[in-house]
């Protein structure tokens, strides 16, 4: 490492991870990135360029975690300013729909609206 080494920043990492899609969402033809889904709990970067990232899965028994974490590692390693990548799995707090971005929650609600035909305060129409 040289004195001019400039470690990657968290924003760049999250932007890059925004290109990774949740495998289950792809399987159901409703592609959602892991960032939108809220699977990235935290990111930190040391001065030496070591990226530490904590992931959570939507289910404790997620079968795609190994695949997902490797894709995350490869994506981050491809960025300039990365010396090494450490990926941790958050097993202490459960993922909930509230972890999704506000925009994704709104889209999900709109999708539910279309699927069920329920409209807000529909009772007033009767």
């Amino acid at each position, binding site marked *: 490492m040289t004195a001019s080494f400039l470690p990657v920043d968290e924003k760049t990492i999250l932007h890059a991870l925004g290109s990774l899609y949740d495998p289950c969402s792809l399987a159901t033809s409703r592609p959602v990135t892991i960032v939108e889904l809220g699977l990235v709990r935290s990111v930190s970067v040391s001065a030496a360029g070591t990226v530490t990232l904590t992931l959570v899965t939507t289910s404790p028994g997620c079968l795609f975690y190994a695949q997902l974490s490797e894709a995350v590692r490869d994506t981050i390693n491809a960025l300039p300013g990365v010396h090494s990548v450490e990926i941790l799995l958050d097993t202490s707090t459960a993922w909930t729909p509230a972890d999704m971005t506000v925009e994704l929650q709104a889209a999900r609600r709109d999708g539910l609206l279309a699927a069920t035909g*329920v409209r807000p305060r529909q*009772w*007033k129409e009767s």
Partner: protein
Amino acid sequence: MIDDVFVFDATVHSFNLDASNVQPNRWAVTLHRAFMDWHEQYASGPDLLSESEYLRDWPAEALTEILFRETMTDMGGHHTLRMDSWFKDGFDSFEKNLEISQRWPQRYVIYLGVDPTVGQGALDELRSQHEAIPDAVGLKIYPAQVDPYRSWRADDREKAFPLFELVGELGLKTVAFHKALAVMGVPTEPYRIDDIEGAAMAFPDLNFEIVHAGNAFLEDTAHLIGRFENVYANLEITSLLSAQRPVLFDEIMSTLLYWGGAEKILYATGCMEWHSQAIIEAIYRWQPSEEMQRRYQLAPLTDKERKLIFGENYARMLGLDLAQCRKGIENDEFAKATKELGLAEPYSHWRARCAAL
């Protein structure tokens, strides 16, 4: 009254938590213990009672002193409970309800209570209770019993509909369903709310309250109050989260507001289970967070909406004139004492009673 807002608590209790009242089965023993644990978990400071204070048979007078001398509550809805397979007297007996209806009619509306799992006997008992309290406004029911386990659905034409027909015939306005909080150690299914829509559709002249709304099945509950004019979200115990789990309460209230509107939410606490003054103040202050305002395109809650939630919805649902209700209580013994002495400390009346025993 908080400021000028009439506080009508849609669900209040005078439980019999004395150990001698617990049925001799494992579900009952566990549930009895759980009530003490829940109280300890959610109460603190002067709102927290010791085991020797809490696990007693609470007389109607104690509830009345708490509500109308220690909180800003103006009126309450008192339920006869028929948790017969957990508690020998059902947990909040008809006799207490009768006493309340006779001693403080200006302060309470009354819900009768039967156990629908006994079949025809429930109809007979409802008639009998109604004869004794003809001014009753509602029916409170539970979806399951234990020892042996049995459950029923509100959309069952044979088991449930005759009961609702009788409710209408007797002139009761509302049916309050214990939902969302599954009693421990039994299947969750009866505590879901997917059976309510069949009843709401078949009985458009009756109202249906989902009690403990939002504690579980939030989205389903929100859709239901959004779709049916005669279904309401009753906040008993949910309201406790306003003071103790504000982030969760924010999400529940915002979801109910978005789908159902302020007109479909009924303020309720379950007091005496917890003291309700802190709950009143927390809900009165509550506004949807910025995140919830963004997620649901909600505007800040207005004074008008607050009045709806705290009592106007409940009065409208029951066909009561709130101006008359105000008049009925403005000079009673509780109003006079509060005017003279101010609100008493939380549970101070009950603590004094316990100390004297």
